[in-house]
C-alpha cells in the first residue's frame, strides 16, 4: 500500500500574497488544522497550522515550556495584540516547513512519521516527482485503511 492509495486528493490550499487573516478564515471555514501554501504551479512552499499560529502569539517562555502550566493566570491581553499584528502578514512569512513525502512512499513510513514520539506531525503533504502537491494524509487516513483491512 502506498501513500497515494490513502491520501485525500481534494486539498484546500493558499497562495503567497494571502494574508494570515484570510488564511485563518480559510482554515476555520474548511474546518481543517492546516492549510498548505503552494505557488501557482502547485509546488509546496510550506504549511500553515493552527498550532503554529498559537505558538507564535504566545510568549516564548510559555510556548518553549519554561512556564509549563499557566492555569493560575487570567487571560493575557498581549495575545490578542500579537494576533492582530500577525494577521496583517503574508502567509509566506508565517508558514512553517511541512513534512512532505513522495506519493510512492509506503504506508509503513507514513505511520512511522505519525507515531514519532516527539515530532507531533498532524498531517503529511504528498508530492509528485516535481514537488507539486497531490494530496494530504492525516493519521485517521491510516487508521481508516487499517480498519478496512488494507
Amino acid at each position, binding site marked *: 500500500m502506498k501513500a497515494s492509495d490513502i491520501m485525500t486528493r481534494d486539498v484546500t490550499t493558499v497562495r503567497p500574497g494571502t494574508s494570515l487573516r484570510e488564511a485563518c478564515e480559510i482554515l476555520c471555514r474548511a474546518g481543517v488544522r492546516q492549510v498548505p501554501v503552494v505557488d501557482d504551479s502547485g509546488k509546496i512552499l510550506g504549511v500553515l497550522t493552527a498550532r503554529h499560529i498559537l505558538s507564535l502569539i504566545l*510568549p*516564548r*517562555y*510559555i510556548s*518553549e515550556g*519554561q*512556564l509549563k*502550566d*499557566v*492555569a*493560575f*493566570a*487570567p487571560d*493575557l*491581553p*498581549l495575545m490578542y495584540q500579537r494576533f492582530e499584528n500577525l494577521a496583517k502578514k503574508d502567509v509566506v512569512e508565517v508558514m512553517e516547513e511541512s513534512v512532505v513525502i513522495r506519493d510512492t512512499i509506503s504506508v509503513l513510513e507514513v505511520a512511522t512519521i505519525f507515531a514519532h514520539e516527539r515530532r507531533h506531525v498532524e498531517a503529511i503533504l504528498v508530492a509528485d516527482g516535481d514537488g507539486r502537491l497531490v494530496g494530504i494524509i492525516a493519521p485517521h487516513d491510516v487508521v481508516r485503511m487499517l480498519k478496512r483491512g488494507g
Partner: protein
Amino acid sequence: MKTELLIATGVFIGVYIMLIWDRFNRAVVALLGASIMIFLGIINQEQAIEGVDFNTIGLLVGMMVIVAVCRETGIFQYVAIKAAKLVKGDPWGIMFMLAWVTAVFSAFLDNVTTVLLIVPLTLLITEEMEISPYPFLVVEIISSNIGGTATLIGDPPNIMIGSAVGLTFMDFVRNLIIPVLLVMVVTLFIIYVFHGRKMKVDESVRERIMSFDEREALKDSNLLKKSLFVLAIVILGFVLQHRLHLEAATIALSGAALLLLITDNDIHETFAHVEWTTIFFFTGLFVVVKGIEEAGLIDRMARWLMEWTGGDLFTTAVSILWGSAILSAFVDNIPFVATMIPLLKKMGVELGGTDAIMPLWWALSLGACLGGNGTLIGASANVVAAGIAEREGYRVGFKEFLMVAFPLMIISIIISTFYVYVWYF
C-alpha cells in the same frame, strides 16, 4: 623557575584565557586543561583524583536532583503569586516581594534554577500588567546573587569554601546573614528611591493581578507533600550538620535518594535536569588547580599576597574581598575561588592557623558571590535570566545592566567591608 612550574602556570593561564574568551564550553576547557596537566607529567591520575573535592561534587549533584523534583510541584509559582497578591497588585510592592522571594529561594536552590523559575513568571506578570519587565529582571538578578550568598548551598563558591574548610550550613548562616540582609535592604531602598516610587498602574491592572489563582499552580499535592517532607529533612540535616558529624554531600545525596524512592518521577528525566556541564567544569578545575598546587604556583602566589599585604590580616581580608568582587564581576567566580582555596590554606599556616584566618574565608565568600552582580556576565544566573528575556524580545544590554548593577555591587562590597571590620577586627 622550575620547568614544571612554568608548564603548569602556562596551562593554568591558558585555561583562564579560554574561559574568558568563552568560545568553547567551559566544562570542555576545564577537562582539557586537566588532561594536559596529566599528559605533561605535572601530576599523575591518582593525584588528579585526589584533587577533586567529591564533597562539593556530591552536594551539587544531590541538590540538583532534589531541585529537579521540587520544581515540578509548582510551589515556587504559588509562593511568588501569593506574594504579588499580598501587596494588592501594586507594581513596586510586587517588585519588592519578588526580590525577597528570589533571594530566599536562591539561598536554598542554586541561583540559576531560581532565575529559571522566577524570570518566566515575572515576564508573565509584567505582560499582564502591561509594564516594562526590565527593572524587575535587574532586581531579581541582583537579589538572586545576594540571597545565594547567605548559605552553604546558595552559591557554588560557598559550597567549595564550606567543603574545603569544613564549615557547616549554620556557620554560613551565622556569619553571612547579617551582611546579606543589610545589602538586600540597602539595595532595595536605593532602587525604591530611584525607580520604585514612580511606579504606577491603573486599578484594572491591579485587578488582573488579583485574579491570578495561585492554588492552580499546585499541580500535584502528593508530590508537593513528599518534596516538602524531604526538603525539610535535608535542611534540618544541614542545620544539625555539626552535631550529626555528617558531610554536606552525604546529607544532599541521601535526601536525593530518598526523594527519588518515594516519588515515582522518571529517573532519566530527573537526572537530565542535573547540570552535568557544571559538574564536569568543577571536576576539571579541581584537577587544574591541583596541578598548579603540586607545581608550586600556589605557594608562590601565597607568598606574593603575603608580601603585598605585609601579613596583616585585615589588609588581606579587604584585598580578598575587593579583589574577588572585581574579578568575579568579569570572570566566572568558580575558577577564582577554586584557586583561592589552596592559596588561603597556605597563607593560614603563616597567619596563625585555621581559626585565625576565618575572616578571610567570609571575605572570599562575600566578594566572590556579591561580585557576580557587577556585570551581566558576572554570574551564570545573570546570563540565563537575560537569555530568557531576550527570547521574548526584551534585550538586557550589557551597558544598561552595568550602569545600574555595578554601583549597587560596589555599595554591597562597601557594606561587606564595614561588616568584616566591625565583626572580626
